[in-house]
């Protein structure tokens, strides 16, 4: 579905990604794991068009999107749920969701997706008039995921959905990811919580300072010593 080949990204003079090759197939959950600063978020932001690669190509369903602007990438069917949620704090839950559907013109579609969001996390329906900034961390994460789904993406990029959440909430989020995936949306997941991520992923990539150092199925990576090393430097 999406294929990155030889992607290189710099922040000013600092290289952030040095030749990334990875693919995500239709219907998969794929996770990117690695320590802080390994380049996971950078990969997502490059796919979304917030960052321009200096070399390499990104193909989405056959089309080269490595030089495409963010709002066009969204309209092609890639949505990102950013790290730290980035809920718009001064807007209501409903307004946040509507922003997710910014490019959708059809009122019926918007209404249907709002209902789907409320079905996925009933909590959001209760809070629809509340300001985003007043939600708890878990609720914000739920909102961010639903906001990402409002555009009806084929590929959903999730950046650290478990960050700072209590175990109980993480379970809910994980359930949601699984059900989103079961509904036909492909998921590319970035996580610090490697154990959680690998447990629910079909495949995973381990990153270290801007490079892929390991790629395997989720289950096999879970057992791998190198994974521990990547995190703990042992």
């Amino acid at each position, binding site marked *: 579905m999406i294929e990155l080949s030889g992607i290189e990204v710099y922040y000013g003079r600092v290289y952030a990604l040095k030749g990334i090759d990875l693919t995500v197939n239709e219907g998969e959950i794929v996770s990117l794991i690695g320590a802080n600063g390994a380049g996971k978020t950078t990969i997502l932001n490059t796919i979304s068009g917030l960052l321009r690669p200096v070399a390499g190509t990104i193909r989405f369903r056959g089309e080269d999107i490595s030089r495409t602007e*963010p709002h066009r990438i969204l309209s092609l069917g890639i949505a990102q749920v950013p790290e730290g949620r980035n809920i718009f*704090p001064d807007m209501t839950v409903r307004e946040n969701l509507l922003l997710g559907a910014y490019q959708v013109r059809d009122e019926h579609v918007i209404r249907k997706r709002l209902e789907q969001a409320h079905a996925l996390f009933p909590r959001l329906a209760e809070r629809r008039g509340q300001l985003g900034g007043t939600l708890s961390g878990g609720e914000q994460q739920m909102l961010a995921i639903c906001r990402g789904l409002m555009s009806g993406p084929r590929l959903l990029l999730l950046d650290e959905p478990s960050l700072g959440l209590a175990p109980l909430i993480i379970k809910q989020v994980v359930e949601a990811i699984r059900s989103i995936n079961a509904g036909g949306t492909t998921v590319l997941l970035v996580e610090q919580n490697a154990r959680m991520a690998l447990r629910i992923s079909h495949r995973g990539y381990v990153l270290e300072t801007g490079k892929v150092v390991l790629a395997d199925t989720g289950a096999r990576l879970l057992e791998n010593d190198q994974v521990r090393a990547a995190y703990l430097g042992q």
Partner: protein
Amino acid sequence: MELFVTQLANGLVIGMTYALVAIGLTLIYGIFHIINMTQGSLYMLGAYAAYVFVSGAQGNYFVAIVFAMVAVGLVGLLFERLSVRPLLGRNHLVFILSTFGLAVITDNLVMIGFGPEPLRLASPIARKFINVQDVLFLTQQKVFLIVFGVAMIVLLTQFLKRTNVGRGMRAVATDQNTAALMGINVKQIYRVTFFLGAAMSAAAGALVGAVFSIEPEMGNLLIIKSFAVVIMGGMGSVPGAFLGGLILGVSESLGGAYLTVEYKDAFGLIVMILVLLLRPQGLLGRRMGLR
């Protein structure tokens, strides 16, 4: 009593002018985090655009207001292209200087084109009076100005609240990257913002131009006063700018009548200085999205 009521009404007229210009300033600050020093010139241009439409083209005054808003809105787009877009990513100070340069150019071009002497913008309701209980005699123009101003502000807040593009503006004001991830075309939002900001100021100019006279320097003090209004009302807040504008207008008018005519122009400046100095952290630390 009569004096008080009259001054109060005049204060509201002036205050509405400040509010409209300040809203333009606040919108642009909210999105770009820059201070647009051309705001006073856009206001002046609004008055002259209406004047050209009415006196030059023999047009209707009320249509002239709309004409001024659209024409000056387009000038705003030009300004964005010339003095903001090429500098995005540079130090914030350069924007003050570049927009200041544009303001000087604009003011002096108008001076060359129309001469320095005051002109009269003719409105059919400028000399019709409304008599309220024999205490207050107001021209219909002033009443119209207030009503129109309130209508503009209500429209704008509803636009920001209810429409897709309005929500998009608020989103870009809070967080450009996340807004882009929502599929919002950020550059388009830039243009919409500058257009609206310019149109708001132009409306103020076209309205107040028919109350007083119009001259090329009419926007000079206005820019810093509306900045004071924005600071008082809170950066990025449209209702705040509205309220701040009215408060400043009324206090100038009443203060001018009862305290000192000479220094009434200093009120807003002093309040602004005090606000900035007494709680700079509170002000600067606050999120500056559009509200």
